[in-house]
């Protein structure tokens, strides 16, 4: 616990190691191997790594073709291009036929930092989530990423996973009883007054916000929702019933992502206040990653404010 490592690095090392045990894993990248960290796989398994050039659309469907011949392809590019540029290829040539391709989108969210709005993808959860049959995953730290990567290798079907650029603290390895299962959220901290359901690097911020609020006497449950689809509805509804208010937190537009998924589930089954914390339907901007996050309110302090508001809305 405590070490800081970007989930993209953890992923790169994990997939390279898994390549030893799973000869059917092949990796594709679109000229970003040094950034998505597929370079680790490239170095270890050069005969099963294919650089498709700056041609994301082609890459996704080439991977689909290879998958029909029994391989387990992982494709790599930035989240923006995986979920945006090649969305229709992922929909029609991977998800619709149910082909076993894992679409990896690195550099998700505002924490891309200096590159600015064109490369800060705050829409990938929404875009991937609306495709029938897609599994959508966003691990929060290096430990969880390693487990998620192996889980994806063993999932037979299409999936999208977001990686982050920014080094983040590893927290899940120190949580007693923590275990990773696709489609099952992990309760990192129990609480009874309100629940924060977070994904990606907002999980660490949620844990910080919980400490701040505990000092005020609020008992906050913190759920790490690494799998955005299929959503762990059972865990969400249990939180709604037991704590009576929910705040979602994600490095993503508040439209269409985790917050929307949770709100849809709660409003249909167990209506309680749901406050969505995330990017308020805006484009990002350039700057050092922590400063960009701060500029858009993605901080423990702003999250804590959302939690207080949710509690105030409880009946």
């Amino acid at each position, binding site marked *: 616990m405590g070490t800081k490592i970007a989930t993209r690095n953890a992923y790169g090392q994990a997939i390279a190691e898994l390549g030893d045990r799973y000869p059917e894993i*092949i990796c594709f990248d679109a000229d970003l191997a040094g950034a998505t960290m597929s370079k680790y796989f490239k170095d270890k398994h050069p*005969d*099963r790594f*294919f650089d*498709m*050039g700056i*041609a994301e*659309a*082609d890459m*996704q*469907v*080439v*991977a*689909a*073709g*290879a*998958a*029909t*011949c*029994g*391989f387990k*392809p992982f494709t790599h590019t930035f989240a923006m291009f995986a979920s945006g540029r090649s969305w*229709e*290829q992922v929909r*029609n*040539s991977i998800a*619709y*036929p*149910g082909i076993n391709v894992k679409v990896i989108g690195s550099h998700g969210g505002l924490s891309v930092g200096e590159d600015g709005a064109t490369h800060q993808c705050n829409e990938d959860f929404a875009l991937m989530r609306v495709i029938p049959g897609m599994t959508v995953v966003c691990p929060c730290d290096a430990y969880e990423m390693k487990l998620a990567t192996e889980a994806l290798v063993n999932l037979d079907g299409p999936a999208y996973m977001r990686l982050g650029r920014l080094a983040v603290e590893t927290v899940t390895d120190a949580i007693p009883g923590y275990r990773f299962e696709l489609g099952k959220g992990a309760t990192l901290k129990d609480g009874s007054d309100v629940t924060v359901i977070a994904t990606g690097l907002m999980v660490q911020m949620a844990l910080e916000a919980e400490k701040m609020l505990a000092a005020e006497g609020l008992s906050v449950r913190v759920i790490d929702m690494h799998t955005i689809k299929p959503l762990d509805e059972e865990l969400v509804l249990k939180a709604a019933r037991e704590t009576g208010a929910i705040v979602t937190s994600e490095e993503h537009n508040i439209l269409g992502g985790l917050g929307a998924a949770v709100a849809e589930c709660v409003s249909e089954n167990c209506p309680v206040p749901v406050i969505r914390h995330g990017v308020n339907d805006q484009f990002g901007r350039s700057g050092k990653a922590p400063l960009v996050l701060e500029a858009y309110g993605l901080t423990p302090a702003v999250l804590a404010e959302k939690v207080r508001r949710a509690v105030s809305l409880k009946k």
Partner: protein
Amino acid sequence: MNNRELALTAAKARREAVSMVYRAQSGHPGGSLSCLDVLTALYFEEMNVDPACPSDPQRDRFVMSKGHCSPAVYSTLALRGFFPVEDLALFRSIEGHISGHVEMRHVPGVDMSTGSLGQGISAAVGMALAGKIRGDAFRVYAILGDGEIEEGQVWEALAAAAKYKLDNLCAIIDVNGLQIDGKTADVMPMEPIDDKCEAFGAHVVTINGHDFDDIRSAFAEARYTKGQPTVILARTTKGKGVSYMENSAGWHGKAPNAAEYETAMQELGALIDELSKEEA
């Protein structure tokens, strides 16, 4: 098969294809008819496939990149024995799973779902690449439309096929000169297609796509070509075999009415009779 047998099979496939579109009152007859001689030669002579074992890992693969030409694919697969010809009656129907564009999950013998143009050729590249990784001997074939090659992804795929020296890949471009809005030359000029494909690293062969000797020798040339993919430019007639559909962009995606259907059946029936008589 000899040329007459191939021509007879293609004529039967054309009759099924037009019937499918007529019954559904929906579908794409023009481009289906133009590519059916090439498709017949693939499934009845060139490709190593076995209807009794449609998922044999060592089979040759086929991708209909212009996935709207599903009547051609489905009728060919049915005649080849992958599923009963009667099932073609469910084309585009809510009663069945023979969907509007080529679909792999429910139709035996289909290697890749297609429909969104420009993507099938990438899938074929992926299959050929898979064959290379494992050292398998199977070959991969894809048919593209000449309108389809306006999609940029086609050229991304060709570049990748050349990079990885996919000589187990043979792409056939069905050059019938027409697309939905009119002549390809007017909508978006792509000629010289042969020079473009060569510049992207492919070995290019131009043939008459309705001449079985031409088709056969082009496939052989593709097999003997090493170190690069082959692109066959099959010059064809859109709507081939039905007089009023020939060379008419209007028949790209339109179903015949009862009288038109009758005419089509008479024309194709006469051809089938003639080719059958030669047999006797």
